[in-house]
């Protein structure tokens, strides 16, 4: 049924960082869980009670075959139907920039979950800025691999844009790490200007600032 456990050294750095952030035994919803690679890791390594939402039927089928509880659906429409605080963590990995209503989704993540784990490509990364400045072309980088006409990303932002929207929505940033393909996650202070240049992608652990929110 399930593939044999991967060598811990083979676990993607961003997944490894999420495994570190998510409390073992907690209730987790992975929004946009794909074929369930991360969710399976969380269930196996952290013994979480894991659920997933995935838009593609083939992804959902793959998840079911892995023994995961996954619903076909999408982040824009299907989060509204969960009860408030149904989960300890809601994970949105490299998806926020592709949803129709990122602010709404962000609010929903922290309505249905006590904490949210959100990762996104940083449009403020120096390569992105350089590409635009030097060539006047839409950047194609490790974190943004597709050309403009093929990308699902419709709401790209920088680390600073994201921290600003969190501030507006009264969302607290409990932890932040810079991600780069193949390299271990690097804890950063997202408020520092230099990190908005250096981080190719960033991962945030978020929580509601006021319990009533």
């Amino acid at each position, binding site marked *: *049924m399930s593939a044999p456990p991967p060598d811990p050294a083979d676990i993607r750095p961003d997944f490894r960082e999420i495994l570190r952030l998510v409390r073992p035994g907690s209730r987790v919803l992975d929004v946009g869980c794909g074929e369930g690679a991360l969710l399976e890791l969380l269930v196996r390594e952290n013994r979480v009670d894991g*659920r997933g939402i995935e838009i593609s*039927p*083939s992804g*959902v*089928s793959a*998840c*079911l*075959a*892995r*023994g*995961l*509880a*996954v*619903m*076909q*659906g999408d982040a824009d429409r*299907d989060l509204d*139907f*969960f*009860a408030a605080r*149904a989960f300890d963590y809601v994970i949105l990995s490299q998806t926020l920039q592709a949803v129709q209503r990122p602010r709404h989704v962000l609010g929903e993540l922290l309505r249905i979950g006590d904490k949210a784990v959100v990762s996104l490509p940083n449009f403020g990364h120096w390569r992105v800025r350089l590409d635009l400045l030097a060539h006047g072309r839409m950047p194609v980088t490790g974190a943004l691999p597709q050309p403009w006409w093929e990308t699902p990303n419709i709401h790209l932002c920088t680390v600073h844009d994201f921290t600003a929207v969190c501030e507006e929505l009264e969302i607290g940033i409990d932890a932040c790490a810079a991600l780069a393909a193949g390299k271990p996650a690097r804890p950063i202070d997202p408020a520092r200007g230099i990190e908005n240049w250096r981080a190719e992608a960033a991962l945030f652990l978020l929580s509601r600032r006021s319990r009533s929110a």
Partner: protein
Amino acid sequence: MSEAAPATGKFGEAEGVIAFGAEAPLRLDGGGRIDNLEIAYRTYGALNAERSNAILVCHALTLDQHVAASGGAGGRRGWWDSLVGPGLPLDPTRHFIICANVVGGCMGSTGPSSIDPRTGATWGLTFPVITIADMVRAQAMLVAALGVEKLFAVIGGSMGGMQVLQWAADYPDRLFAAVCIAAAARHSAQNIAFHEVGRQAIMADPDWRGGGYAAAGARPEKGLAVARMAAHITYLSEAALQRKFGRELQGDGLSWGFDADFQVESYLRHQGASFVGRFDANSYLYITRAMDYFDLAAAHGGVLARAFAAARDVRFCVFSFTSDWLYPTAESQAIVRALNAAGARASFVEIDTDRGHDAFLLDEPVLRAALGGFLESAALVWGRP
């Protein structure tokens, strides 16, 4: 309670009719009860020592207890041979699979074509109106009589899926997993409308005789065939009909009359004609009525999530098909959302196919793989079968 001697076959399949005595009447939602209830059923495979490998399959409107092939080569085919059999998701070499004819049916369980023991005559329209919950209550009696305290899974498509939901609502402690395929938590206005067309066709047939055709030695075959023809269209999709038949003719040219010029007409006539040989018209009235009355939320203050409030520990898997316009995906999504709101563990897959509602009975590799994966992993957690 007594049992007709079960005949056993290749995969330990057994066929029987269980008769509940007057001391165990079936209490009905409508207020009445059925004494001396009989339920015809088949089982495939053997119940293990822990009694933990039982799966109940709930059949759809016009189907029966013959869910899988029996009698080896040359034997009767089952209606779910694509999912039930050795090496398939429902495997008689591992599971104890139970399928029973619903109460109100005409394949051996007590229904309008049975003899009312109080009068010695056919029930006909004196048979009480039954509901999906009544069907499930009768199944629960059977399951208990077969020595199964808790089912590993309850699985069904279409009306069978409605029964699955009812099981979860009414007996949440007696099932571990629930699989609901191409169904809804309530019958829509369109569903009721199509059923009404079918019922009116039957009742308009002079041979129906106010429901008393059995005593008159008649059968409302024309009306029942029309009912089946209309219903059969709803089981397919426009794309599937077009792909299968297009405007292809039966013969060389148009007849300039009302024969079955088009292949699609001939196909529907065949569907109607072959149906009347195996189904009872009054059963069709009663079972379609039970489906129309089905509204799981209604009994729970109109909030579907409340129906599943006690089913939080049941593992659900819900399937829909893109081209199913009888029970469209939105109906399955409503079920899944209610399950989530109730805090239940629900998986959901919409399968891409142009074969319409009937896809649940056909060989759909995605359904087979996903159902297999779901049951495998449920079994690991259940820890026994």
